[in-house]
């Protein structure tokens, strides 16, 4: 357990090293936040209460999206390109020799990364957004830890999806296609472009049931106080359920894949 804590801390420090890049990223998150905020204002001007949000809740949703974009890796990124590269070059054989669990190792590193991105890339855009727009912050102090737990579960689901994508490289060798498809799905079905409760009919129902909704839609709704009491428990169960299923699938795929690995000379 201590080992994984150290790995997580390493993941945090690794991303914390690039301060200029972080500042540049914050700038970009803020610019996109402003652009999206104005489009949402135009939309909610015509249809107040659209999707059950009032205008300030809709704007809060925009800035939550910018705050979680990197942390929950909504568009992918983080570790999978590195893991794919290790699979392609065969370095993975060395990893499999190590007396640590492959999946937990990468999960720990990704949690460290997510923690840094939440602080480094999440807090400042949210703060700047709050300066420029009237945002709906939680009325109750308890909403904050509830939100953070939901974000944590979302990051685990996000990791589990990206781990599956990386595992596909054992068969495909080139992970670019799979990563791009995962990026598309993440962008659209997390609710990054538009809240999922604005998706019409069947598309909306499917989108809300898919794992990607755990990444942004569910944490945002927890933040906005849409899930309370029993509903909050259900939201957690939804996220944790997907996390368990997808992590399990990743483990199965890993077992199947490691049987295939043939290391040259051995």
């Amino acid at each position, binding site marked *: 357990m201590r080992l994984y804590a150290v790995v997580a801390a390493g993941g945090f420090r690794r991303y914390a090293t690039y301060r200029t890049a972080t500042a*540049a990223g914050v700038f970009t998150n803020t610019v*996109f936040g402003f652009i999206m905020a104005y489009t949402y204002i135009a*939309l909610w001007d015509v249809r107040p209460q659209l999707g059950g949000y009032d205008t300030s809740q809709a704007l809060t949703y925009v800035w939550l999206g910018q705050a979680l974009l990197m942390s929950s890796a909504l568009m992918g990124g983080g570790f999978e390109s590195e893991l794919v590269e290790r699979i392609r070059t065969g370095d993975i054989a060395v990893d499999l020799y190590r007396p640590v669990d492959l999946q937990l190792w990468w999960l720990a590193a990704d949690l460290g990364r997510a923690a840094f991105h939440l602080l480094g890339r999440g807090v400042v855009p949210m703060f700047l957004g709050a300066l420029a727009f009237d945002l709906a912050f939680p009325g109750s102090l308890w909403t904050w830890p509830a939100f953070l737990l939901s974000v944590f579960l979302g990051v685990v689901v996000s990791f589990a999806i990206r781990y599956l994508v990386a595992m596909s490289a054992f068969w495909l060798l080139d992970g*670019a*296609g799979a990563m791009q498809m995962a990026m598309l799905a993440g962008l659209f079905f997390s609710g990054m472009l538009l809240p999922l409760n604005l998706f019409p009919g069947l598309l909306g129902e499917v989108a809300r049931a898919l794992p990607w909704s755990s990444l942004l839609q569910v944490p945002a709704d927890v933040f906005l106080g849409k899930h309370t009491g029993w509903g909050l428990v259900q939201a957690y169960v939804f996220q944790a359920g997907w996390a368990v299923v997808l992590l399990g699938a990743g483990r199965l795929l890993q077992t199947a894949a490691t049987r295939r690995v043939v290391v040259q000379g051995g």
Partner: protein
Amino acid sequence: MAESVAVRADGEEHEPVGFAFEDRPRPLEGVRAYGLIMAMWVRSTMAYRASFAMTLFGNLAVTAFDFVTILLMFTHVDALGGYALPEIALLYGLSSTAFGVCDLLLGSMDRVGGRVRDGTFDTLLVRPVPVLAQVAADRFALRRLGRITQGLLVLGYAIVTLDIAWTPLKMLMLPMTVLSGAAIFGAVFIAGAAFQFVAQDASEVQNSFTYGGTTLLQYPPTIFAKDLVRGVTFVVPLAFASWLPALYVLGREYPVDLPQWVAFLPPLVAAGACALAGLAWRAGLRSYRSTGS
């Protein structure tokens, strides 16, 4: 890799290496080098056809989602900022196509910072080829045709569904806007690359103006704060890449008070922006100091 191709191409023409580029004026030399490097990357991409097909589709789909978002918005409303869907489609199509052309030609300019940091930028300096051409053609990605295709499809949809009296002038405005728009975005890319000589890790800042700019221009100017509209009109002249000429075509008022002839200025603005970006690039290149190790 680029070197070996250049040498081989030179060899075919039986010219001594090193002199091949010197008997032409510099801009032409740059274009020729760009073409050679581009052809090399296209050949290398085509070695993995299935992967290319997938990434081409992905490139088309990822930009298409922007438009799907707008379509989803229009399932709830009839107009956004007072603009109907075909009108927004025109803004979207112009902005997306112009940006797509620029992204295809200069899309790898954000790699300058990385090259400065890891020292591979020096390699570009010792080759007898204009550095800007090498940087611009670096990793030329044919998959970026996806964005242009998607932009053109939306533009076509707008032209078919728009209910306006088309005059020859208005029709000429469209290609003029796309070409000038691509040049204006190009100036932003080059200025951004120049900035990376100063701040190597800050390449993402450029995304705010390029990707952010094209996203901004996809929506009508009426929905944004006046100061933001003024900013993209007078400071970073992105408004000339779609809004101003498109609003003339649509017969709409621009939220910032400007005379109507401003709609015909994009080519001039593009030329000015490119000249300034060129100066910035030269200044950046001159200030470059190798790590020396």
